[in-house]
């Protein structure tokens, strides 16, 4: 079936990232949308409310009283066999915390847009990935976008990934707040029909509304069946490592934009590399282009899928690099480096791939990071590659101890 996909021509527009997500939601036309507004996700809910008010979607929109209720409502709707979606960020995602685990444990293919924001305190509404990365172990598929286009494309693919019979797990799609969410960016919107055809109609295996074959959802597990259920869930999440590139390939044939688990940039012959997630990959590209212009072989590996963790793909892509810096935009406190770093170390170690590898925390709470700072990371890596001092292993990017007078 996938062989007959014809590439379609979309409409090139300039939209704020939040509106791009809202457009994707409108085109997907979910059965139920339950959401609560929170900066910087608010524009998604506002825009979708307009679609609902104008009657351009079939969706029943539930303007709930909290993010916890938003996800709770989605759990009920999804168990009832509806395609259910929501959006949140930061504190809202934290408030959903408990139900993140219920949604994945119940194997409900809910799709959620996360407009990444820091977690208080101090109160800060700007972007980092602490909110979403802190939910790493909740059993959701996690995709992150670098650009407006990817944010839009990811949401559409997420529906298929979540609902894939071998996965059947909720999926969240991260996008930087403000940097993408509130900034105008160019992207190609697919025709409505193409999106609807791509996501097709959801046919659940079991529904809470099927009173002829009554099913109990969320029975209680004693010691005997909890672990087996978690093992099954693990299997479903790991299956996404296969399913995500399959869906990305199919999406590519439709749009010309192909997606995998990770995306290399100028990596093949790079001596040193940065591994990064999300919008700052854009500034990294600029840094790479500048340094390449000077003949310096630097590259990047962008991680699109953080959960399930694509260890093979990352190890394969990084193999042969002399030194690597893993950049995490999350305030994971007290570890041996940041979470992406530690996991990549583990992936390399277990595959007998040896290289110098350091960890950077950067850009917390919207702290600005410019291409020159990534150039500095590359210069540090080149020194390390040539036998320079690797310590400290964990660093904080461009964070002066004292301000300039």
């Amino acid at each position, binding site marked *: 079936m996938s062989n007959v996909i014809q590439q379609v021509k979309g409409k090139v527009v300039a939209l704020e990232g939040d509106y791009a997500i809202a457009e994707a939601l409108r085109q997907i036309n979910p059965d139920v949308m339950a959401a609560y507004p929170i900066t910087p996700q608010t524009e998604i809910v506002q825009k979708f409310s307009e679609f609902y008010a104008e009657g351009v979607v079939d969706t029943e929109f*539930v303007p709930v009283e909290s993010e916890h209720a938003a996800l709770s409502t989605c759990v009920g709707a999804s168990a009832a066999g509806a395609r259910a979606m929501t959006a949140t960020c930061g504190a809202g995602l934290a408030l959903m915390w408990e139900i993140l685990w219920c949604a994945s444990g119940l194997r409900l293919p809910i799709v959620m847009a996360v407009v990444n924001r820091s977690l208080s305190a101090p109160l800060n509404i700007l972007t980092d990935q602490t909110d979403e990365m802190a939910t790493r172990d909740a059993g959701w598929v996690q995709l992150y976008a670098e650009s407006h286009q990817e944010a839009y494309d990811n949401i559409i693919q997420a529906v298929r990934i979540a609902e894939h019979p071998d996965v059947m797990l909720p999926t969240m799609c991260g996008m930087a707040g403000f940097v993408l969410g509130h900034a105008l960016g160019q992207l190609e919107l697919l025709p409505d029909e193409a999106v609807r055809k791509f996501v097709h109609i959801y046919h659940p295996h079991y529904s809470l509304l099927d009173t002829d074959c009554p099913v*109990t959802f969320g029975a209680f597990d004693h010691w005997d069946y909890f672990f087996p259920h978690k093992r099954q869930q693990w299997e479903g999440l790991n299956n996404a490592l296969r399913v995500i590139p399959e869906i990305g390939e199919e999406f590519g044939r439709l749009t010309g934009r192909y997606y995998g688990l990770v995306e290399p940039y100028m990596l093949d012959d790079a001596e040193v590399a940065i591994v990064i997630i999300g919008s700052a990959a854009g500034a990294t590209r600029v840094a790479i282009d500048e340094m390449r212009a000077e003949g310096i072989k630097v590259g990047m590996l962008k991680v699109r899928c953080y959960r399930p963790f694509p260890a093979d793909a990352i190890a394969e892509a990084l193999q042969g690099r002399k030194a690597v810096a893993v950049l995490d935009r999350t305030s994971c406190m007290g570890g041996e480096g940041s979470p992406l770093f530690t996991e990549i170390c583990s992936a390399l170690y277990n595959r007998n791939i040896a290289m110098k590898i350091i960890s950077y925390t950067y850009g917390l709470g919207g702290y600005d990071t410019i291409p020159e700072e990534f150039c500095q990371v590359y210069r540090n890596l080149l020194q390390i590659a040539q036998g320079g001092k690797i310590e400290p292993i964990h660093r904080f990017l461009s964070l002066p101890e004292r301000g300039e007078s």
Partner: protein
Amino acid sequence: MAIKLTDICNKEEKLASGHRGCIGCAETIIVRQVMAAIDGPVVVASPTGCLEIITTPFPTTAWRVPWIHNAFENSSSTLAGAETAYRSLVKQGKIEDKGLKFVVFGGDGATYDIGLQFISGVIERGHRLLYVCLNNEAYMNTGIQRSSATPLGAWTTTTPVGKAVPGKIQPRKNLIAIVAAHNIPYAAQAAPHAWRDLMTKVQKAIAIDGPSVIDVLSPCARGWRHSTNETIAISRLSAETGAWPLYEVDHGKWKLNYNPVPRKPVIEWLKAQGRFSHLLQPGNEHIVEEFQQQIDKQWAELESMSQ
């Protein structure tokens, strides 16, 4: 037409035997009564609590209707999600309209305490579901801890009777008044000994195109410290003493459904339960007196509002 047991007793039980409810549990009596009162297909949700644990130990279930557990605080939102899904799928022609009804059975902890915000939201948005509180006046599933539904003076494991503090020092929260303040179409208090009153209320509630709440007193032999065979007798005494008035708020109209004359003194209800045994000790008379005064006050209000 008055509900007759001879008419409803031949229907298939929606809650199967073999559930692990404690001996003499009122919750399962109430669930059986509520389910027997509803005709047609029903979808049920329960929060974490006694009912959830006793009815669904995997890989078995006591439910013969679709049922869902999500978490402790959010059964109202969860079922509202299912109800929304139903409206959406029917509207789009994806499924047929079978006149599905939606019922939550939640304990008082899930209802009065941790789930109150969710219930408020569900009522305010007008979801078409019946929320039944199985009110055993404490967190019984975890071993008798106080909730905001626990009455004045009651012993629980978190309101122990000590030299300085004689059990719970606050009266219970008035859930139905809170719910009624949402201008909900239908809200009521009921109890399982008055089965016909309860079933009639369920039928009124379920017929409404909107939210409804019925708070049902659910005597608990373990937590209230009474014999397993006294569950219904204690329920009856709660109504006869006014400790648990049976009333309804039907589209804003308040009505006492049972007005015992004379109303028995509350001490009769208190002395029937071990959780209040310390109130019979010298020095605690003032608590009994305060309890009685609160009942008299609430009763006067209910009578006046029922005019």
